[in-house]
Structures are given as structure tokens and as C-alpha cells.
């Protein structure tokens, strides 16, 4: 309908950020939550202001290269990674602010539970978590509990400032039916997801609604924290918050707090070091402890292999199970990606990882998965 003024430049949108790996780059679309691999040579055509002069390009590239470029241009336009503009108006489009911040001393808390656990849920949820402004909780149980046990906990959560909660609980038909658990989830609206482990089949028991109320059952047995820490594209988190967090922090442990089955306060339930027990230690003191915060700052840019990986700013991390347990900057053990060949391989059969697998006592787990 209306004419557009001729423009000779294209500019990458500031939320479509190229990340270079050893062999290739990916463009991370932080708004639409997707990524697309592209060759380095394409990214190199853009200048430091993410601008590319199309007219100039036509005079510098040979015909064959131009043909390839036009296909990529088509892709960039279809994905709306770029917009056409003139050099002057491009100045009005700044880069996106890369600061990460969050209004909580602890953004999320994992609480592990087994038959032997003696957690005081009322004190933990109402006082302790509130003292660190923690609004997201994951409760994970390795043994069977009745629905009334979970119901007592959710009642405390319902009356607290906690915004959302995930449950990972054992599926035992003697304790509750899928229908009962679905109804329970529906009537407690802070529940984001319930994962029933040790189940007879993998299925969606209840569909999610606006990101809440999802119930899944999985065959996998989760009877210890050892099954955590998998790295897989399906766990990639492609958004502004995770991306900016990854630039300065560890994407798994930053501002995270964990309470293991015995009440020990840790960075992660799978990690050995305890900073005290919730019986006699305040969460706020642990969170403010500089030693506790150390792992928060291990960035992907410092981790072996990950620093050469194009997925480093959308990938999760794991510091509990790493390739070389002696070196806290070594890559996550359960990552099968090779950024030097751009191939995903099975991590558990990799001969170079066998030593670490033995170190963590994962031989049985690894066999189960196969």
C-alpha cells in the first residue's frame, strides 16, 4: 500500500544475537525462543553495529558467493532476524542491555525428600525462603508419599509469597490415582508441573494451562540426585533472561539454593559440600556467604569445551557432574556435544568419560539409560 524509502543496509535485530562456536555460529532469537545455525562467514559480513551494506556487498562478492548470500538473506528475512534500514536510522536501534538482575537473594530452591527427611516445611517455606525472597521451589521426592502429605505442603505454599512450585514425586497407585493427582493440581494454582517418576508409562497426564498445571508421568526412576545434570537441546533456554545470566553467571547454580534429604544446605543437592543444616543455620547467612557464592560466577566462557561451543549462552550447565572432577572448570559430564565436529554423541559411552562415570558411581545409571 505505502512505499518504503529505499534502504541499502540490513541490521540484525538486537534480540537476535549471533554466538560464535569453534566451527559455526548460531543466531539466538531471544524473543521468539529459537536458534538457527549459520556459517561464521555470514556473521562476519556484519560490522560491529550489526549492519551490513547490501550495495557494497554486491560489488565485493563474486557471483557464486552472492548466490549463496541471497539464500541466507532470504532466511534472515523470513525469520525476521534483520530489518532494512538506512545508516542514520540504524543509530536509533541500540544493542540490548546485557545486564542480569533479579529481585531475590535466592531465585530458586530445590528441596529433596525421602522417608528419612525431617524438614520443618512451615518454617522453611514461611520464614526461611521468605527471608531470601525466594519465589520458586522444586520439591523432589525419592520415596513414595501419600497425597495428603503433599497436600499439607501445598497448603503452606498457598499461603506464602511463593509464586510457583514444581513437584517431582514417585508414582505409586497405592498412594493416589492419576485422576486424583490431576484434580489436586487443578485446585492448587501455584503448581507449575508435577512429574511422576517410576511410572508405568511416559505420558502427559494433564495438559498445561498458561504454563501451569502440567502433570507428566515418566518411566525413569528418580531415586537419587544422580539422574540430574543432563545437557540436551530440549533443555536449552533461549530468552533474554537466561542469555544475559549466562554472560556473567553460572546458568545452573547462580542464586540457587538446595536442601538435601538430610536438611543440608548446598549449592545443588548433587554436590558434596554442605554449608550447614536447616535445623540450625539460616538460609540468608548461607546465601550471603562468599564461599557459597563462588560457583555462581563460573561462566560458560570459562569452562573447557563450552567456551568453544556456539550454544554456550542458551545452554544449561551442571557443576555437580563434570568430566574432570578435579577441575571445576571442566565441561559437564553429561553433555554429548562436540563443538569441534558439531555432532551430538552419546556421552555415557565416550571412553574419555569412563573415569568420571566411575568416580561418581554412575555405572548403574548409565546402564539403565541404555
Amino acid at each position, binding site marked *: 500500500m505505502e512505499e*518504503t524509502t529505499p534502504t541499502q543496509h540490513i541490521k540484525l535485530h538486537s534480540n537476535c544475537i549471533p554466538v560464535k562456536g569453534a566451527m559455526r555460529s548460531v543466531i539466538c532469537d531471544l524473543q521468539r525462543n529459537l536458534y538457527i545455525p549459520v556459517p561464521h562467514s555470514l556473521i562476519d559480513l556484519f560490522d560491529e553495529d550489526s549492519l551490513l551494506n547490501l550495495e557494497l556487498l554486491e560489488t565485493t562478492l563474486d557471483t557464486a558467493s552472492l548466490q549463496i548470500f541471497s539464500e541466507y538473506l532470504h532466511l534472515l528475512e523470513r525469520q525476521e532476524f534483520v*530489518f532494512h534500514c538506512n545508516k542514520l536510522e540504524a543509530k536509533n536501534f541500540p544493542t540490548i*542491555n546485557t545486564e542480569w538482575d533479579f529481585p531475590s537473594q535466592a531465585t530458586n530452591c530445590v528441596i529433596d525428600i525421602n522417608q528419612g527427611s525431617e524438614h520443618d516445611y512451615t518454617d522453611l517455606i514461611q520464614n526461611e525462603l521468605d527471608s531470601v525472597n525466594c519465589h520458586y521451589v522444586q520439591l523432589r521426592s525419592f520415596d513414595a508419599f501419600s497425597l495428603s502429605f503433599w497436600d499439607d505442603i501445598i497448603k503452606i505454599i498457598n499461603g506464602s509469597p511463593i509464586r510457583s512450585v514444581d513437584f517431582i514425586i514417585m508414582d505409586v497407585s497405592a498412594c493416589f490415582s492419576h485422576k486424583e493427582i490431576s484434580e489436586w493440581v487443578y485446585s492448587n494454582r501455584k503448581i507449575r508441573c508435577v512429574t511422576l517418576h517410576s511410572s508405568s508409562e511416559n505420558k502427559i497426564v494433564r495438559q498445561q494451562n498458561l504454563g501451569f498445571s502440567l502433570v507428566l508421568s515418566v518411566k525413569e526412576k528418580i531415586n537419587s540426585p544422580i539422574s540430574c545434570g543432563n545437557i540436551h537441546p530440549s533443555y536449552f533456554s533461549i530468552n533474554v533472561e537466561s542469555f544475559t545470566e549466562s554472560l556473567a553467571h553460572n546458568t545452573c547454580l547462580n542464586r540457587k539454593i538446595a536442601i538435601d534429604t538430610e536438611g543440608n544446605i548446598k549449592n545443588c543437592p548433587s554436590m558434596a559440600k554442605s554449608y550447614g543444616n536447616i535445623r540450625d543455620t539460616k538460609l540468608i547467612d548461607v546465601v550471603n556467604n562468599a564461599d557459597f557464592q563462588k560457583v555462581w560466577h563460573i561462566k560458560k566462557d570459562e569452562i573447557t569445551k563450552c567456551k568453544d561451543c556456539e550454544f554456550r549462552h542458551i545452554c544449561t550447565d551442571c557443576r555437580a557432574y563434570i568430566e574432570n572432577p578435579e577441575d571445576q572448570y571442566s565441561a559437564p559430564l553429561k553433555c554429548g556435544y562436540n563443538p569441534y565436529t558439531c555432532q551430538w554423541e552419546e556421552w555415557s559411552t565416550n571412553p574419555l568419560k569412563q573415569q568420571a562415570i566411575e568416580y561418581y558411581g554412575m555405572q548403574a545409571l548409565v546402564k539403565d539409560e541404555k
Partner: protein
Amino acid sequence: MEMSKSTILIHSADFDASTNDVLDWLYYNPQSKNFNIKRINGSIGIDTISMYISSSKETPASVCSFFDPNIKFYWYRRGALEILAPNKYLIYSDNFNHVTKSDYADYNKFLKELVPKGINNPRDNEINKLKVYVHAKQCGLFFPDTYILNSFSDDFLEKLKGKEFVVKSLSYPSISIHYKSFEVDLYSSTQLINLKDVLKIYPKTFLLSQFQEYIPKKYEIRTFYLNGIFKSMAIFSQQNEQTKVDFRNYDLERPNRCVPYNLPKWYETKLHELMLSLEINCGSIDTIVTPDDEFYFLEINPIGQFQWLSKNCNYFIERMIADALLH
């Protein structure tokens, strides 16, 4: 011991997510310990009040049960503020109600001049589009030709020739109706009309509506404004047929590209002047950038939604507001 602390009063509504987000930042800031933070949801009815003015005082003041002198900061976000007629005096006669209502209305209006300082004021809700444009004109801003009509004037029909206009309801674009056992929320989005559409209705009258010249756009700019600070975002709604006229016709599958944007300084200066002249210290401002790089000012929403803008551009607007409340 609580006496010495000053109060931050937040006037909002149940389930207002942005208020919750700002409160998170507020509590996260150690300085919040020095304040009483009070949030009220919904309408505030004031039962006892005295407003006074004296020739020895510069400005009028009020003493009321609600605004205690400890309130250092009042953030108005949602809900009404009005003086209640005590129950025992309520006489259910139409005439009497009419008299008290208009008396009260005057002073309810005046009361808003007397509320504690802060961010926004309940009177900001009362701004009227044409008044805003009168001020915008004085500030030298461009805006689309605008008509408020309940019937089509000859003048308007003349103007419409060969052009398209955008029709909009005047106020909140949604109404609730009861249909059988359902309650239906009707939401009217912005629509394009031309002379042919108008002639179908002409010469009937209709509810007062806004008709605005359609301005071709390269992108739209949504700005959050707070005391002279501008946080802007460009919305590439033009690429998408669904959102060409009104970006609220969301496309969930493929949301419009939204990126941080800096308005040119000359334009910000004019907008700032406009906000000062309207005495509104916080709000959302909509602008259109045309294919010829012209800037058209569209509207101000004094109590705007900023969550979307804040998230997309990583602006931390919620933290900005919390900081403003504490300073």
C-alpha cells in the same frame, strides 16, 4: 517504634502483576527496611476528611483518615479514590442523590490535588484525548487528524475522500454483556474504514467514537516515561497483516519483532514538555514512525502496562519504579 518510619502507599488492584513485580524489587532493596510499605487494592473510600485553606498558607491541605502525614510517597496505579457519603445520610431519592453526587464530585476532583506526591495521580485517568492533542500541538508535535464524532459531518466526509481512517472506541475498548448464562467480554479493536463503509451508516448517529487519519508506519514506538526518563521499544507491526492497524491483535505464533529503541533527542524533548504541561509524571506513550522517518505522536496512557516493554528490552522498569519509590 514504627512511628518514625515514613510510609510508601501503593494504590493498586488485586492480581496486578506489575505491582507484585515492583514490590519484589522494593523488598529486595535493603533501604525498604526504613519504610512502611502499604498496598491497597481497589477503590479507596474516605469516610472522614477535612480540607482547608488559609490565607496564611501557600496551598490548600487536607486532613483525612486515609492520608496520614507519614505518607512520603503515593504510587497510584489502579482504583478509585473518593469521599464516601456516610450511610446514615443516604436518602434514596433521585433528587437528593443527584445533589450530593455533584457536590461530592467537585470535591472528589479537588481532593486529587491534595494527595501526597508520588507516581501518577487518580486524576491522570481523567485526561481526554482532545485536550492531550491541544497540548501536543503547543509543544510542536505532529499527530494524525482526529475527529470525535457521534454522526458523520460533511466536513468529515469531505476529508475521508480517497483516505482511510482508523476507528476506535473512546475509552476502555471492552464491554461486558450478559448473554443467556454467559458473561461475554466484547473487545473492540481498532479498525480501518473508508468512505464506502461510512456511507453504509450515514446519516445515522452512533456512540461517540474516535476517528483518526491512518498514518502509514514503518514501525511503532511504545515508550515508558517516568519523570523525564524515556525507555522506548520499536514494534515492527507492519510486517504482520494481523497487527498492521492495531498491534494488540496479537499473533501468538509469531509475535511482532520488539526491540529497544532510542527516540531522537528533539522528539523526547517535546514529549517531556508535553508531559510537564499535562502534569503527568508517568505513563506509556505511543508514536508512529512513517516510512519517511516522520514522528507522529499517537497517545498517552497514564497508567500504562510496562511489563511487556521491560521484559522484551531488558529495561528493568519495575526496578526503576521501586527505586523511585524509595528516593
